[in-house]
């Protein structure tokens, strides 16, 4: 039945193509106007403007002159290798915390999916770190990491896990980085957990029942059903979380602000320090813009790792 031919054979006055859904186009665009307006003015424009700023010697409140790529010669201001430290730290911080958040989030989701008393309460409680204002909970952590009155050290010493006086959490470079990561994991895990939980709950139960009847152990059920079925959720969560962690500012700012001796310096903090207190907006913009290609790289990496197996 020559389908295409027949349609063409229809008399010309029948052939006026009418497309009901073309009429949806004006409405479709209209509904996007508020969103595009806000994103255009406060996101796209500043982004492009930031690119221009990064090639000028602008200062706070003062547009400067074009100076080429000078701002990107980070080594000029880089006697201690702060730029490289910041880049390395940003990757390390994102990488390590993501691995822990992923693993702990999965464990938490699996636990929350079990039946136990006060499930609703427990679920709400475990979500708290994620929803409480970061800055405020990080202040509590800073108090817990206090050099002289650390409750963590008090607990560790009194349970004889470490010798008195315990580690100086925020004063020693390696400890400070570890502290930063611990708190980030503490805060970020619930997000992974809640997303995984949502993903787990839409997996059809008969898959597990079939596997159980087939003699699969709990571990086999987990690796053969749960994990593959969670792939789409995993993708979304990893994307969101790596981006947010990579560009994390508020937590590290409150807890260490790059100290001690720039050892916990991250690109976001460094950009702030140059741009706002330092007043060198052009340089700050250049530093923060370095985030963009790196971020794209990370996202590409995540997408590549989680590509549909084919």
């Amino acid at each position, binding site marked *: 039945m020559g389908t295409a031919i027949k349609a063409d054979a229809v008399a010309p006055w029948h052939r006026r193509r009418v497309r*009901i859904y073309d009429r949806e186009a004006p409405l479709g665009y209209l509904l996007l106007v508020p969103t595009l307006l806000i994103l255009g003015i406060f996101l796209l424009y500043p982004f492009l403007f930031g690119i221009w700023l990064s090639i000028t010697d602008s200062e706070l409140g003062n547009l400067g002159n074009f100076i080429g790529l000078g701002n990107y010669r980070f080594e000029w201001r880089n006697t201690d290798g702060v730029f490289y430290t910041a880049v390395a730290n940003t990757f390390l911080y994102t990488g390590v915390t993501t691995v822990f958040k992923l693993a702990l989030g999965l464990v938490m989701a699996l636990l929350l999916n079990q039946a136990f008393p006060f499930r609703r309460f427990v679920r709400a409680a475990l979500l708290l770190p994620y929803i409480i204002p970061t800055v405020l909970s990080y202040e509590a952590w800073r108090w817990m990491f206090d050099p002289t009155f650390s409750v963590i050290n008090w607990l560790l010493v009194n349970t004889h896990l470490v010798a008195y006086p315990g580690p100086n959490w925020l004063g020693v470079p390696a400890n400070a980085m570890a502290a930063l990561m611990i708190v980030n994991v503490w805060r970020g895990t619930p997000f992974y957990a809640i997303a995984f939980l949502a993903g787990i709950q839409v997996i059809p139960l008969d898959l597990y029942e079939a596997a159980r009847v087939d003699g699969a152990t709990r571990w086999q059920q987990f690796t053969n059903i749960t994990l593959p079925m969670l792939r789409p959720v995993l993708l979304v969560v990893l994307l969101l979380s790596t981006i947010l962690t990579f560009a994390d500012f508020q937590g590290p700012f409150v807890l260490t602000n790059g100290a001690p001796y720039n050892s916990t310096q991250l690109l976001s903090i460094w950009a702030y320090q140059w741009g706002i207190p330092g007043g060198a907006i052009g340089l700050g913009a250049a530093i923060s813009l370095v985030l963009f290609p790196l971020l794209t790289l990370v996202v590409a990496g995540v997408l590549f790792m989680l590509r549909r197996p084919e």
Partner: protein
Amino acid sequence: MASVTYEHVTKKFSADTTAVDDLSLSIKDTEFMVLVGPSGCGKSTALRMLAGLEDITAGQIKIDDQVVNEMPPRDRDVAMVFQSYALYPHMTVFDNMAFGLKMRGSSRTEMDSRVKEAARILRLDQLLARKPRQLSGGQRQRVALGRAIVRQPRAFLLDEPLSNLDAMLRVQTRIELQKMHQRLGTTFIYVTHDQVEAMTMGDRIAVMKDGVLQQVAPPREIYDEPVNMYVAGFIGSPRMNFLPVTITDHQAKASGLELKLPKAPGVARGILGIRPEHFLPNVSADDAVIDLKVEVLEVLGADQYLYGKVGSDELIARVDPQLKVSVDDHVRLGINMRRLHLFDPETEQAVF
């Protein structure tokens, strides 16, 4: 009340997927027209184009004498019952039924009286304050019908309205729908994949396949005189037996059967079509006779189906349940020559 005309209507979803292909069909005022075919045959698309939910790629659709190609759905004055019923979950039964009137700016009192009237007819009076999720499947179906009735539209479009009901309710609702059609005297256009619904309800049936209209005729004629093998096989259950035959003059010869055709078809090869119900238990001398080797038996109370082989061809026969048969028996059955069909194996069109 209105007539509906499809003139060379084609719907393409993309360059190489044609859902409806050059459909021409005219539906008379007050007619009950059934569009039937397997899923994906384009019957729903044809209906949705009439409702204004799909644009028309080519051709035109007329309601009465008005071309409606470019008319938005709300101005077409047709009502539609969806397979899923599409009841608005956040509204009560009353509000669901009144929605169409409200959109058209009817007065509160008119809305009230028309909804109450429809509710009375459909036995929904007690349920008007409920939400759809508090209703049973059958009740939801009636609300969907009610929503269409209160509108008093020019035509009712029904897209598989019974397929979500259980078997008993389906039969019951089928009858109610026919009564409703008689009482309302409105044009009904009914889409289904179920040939029983088509046969029992339609004034005329339009059989579709792969977007192409195969045959339009009253149920009796579709059953008695299918134009091709597809229609012959689709209508009737169990489906028509098809036996490839070689023909010399009047004589047709299959693997396990030879018979004299009532007239010479003028082709060398053909496909014989015999409905399972057209075998005769009592064989007379001049009947064509087959010898069926029974492989599976199905006794359904009123009927008995024999599945078996004639020569190398598979065959189903419907016989009297009183006939004592067991597996591996050989049963002699006559063929009702007046109900015999012959198809061209190349074009699959009916020869007679």
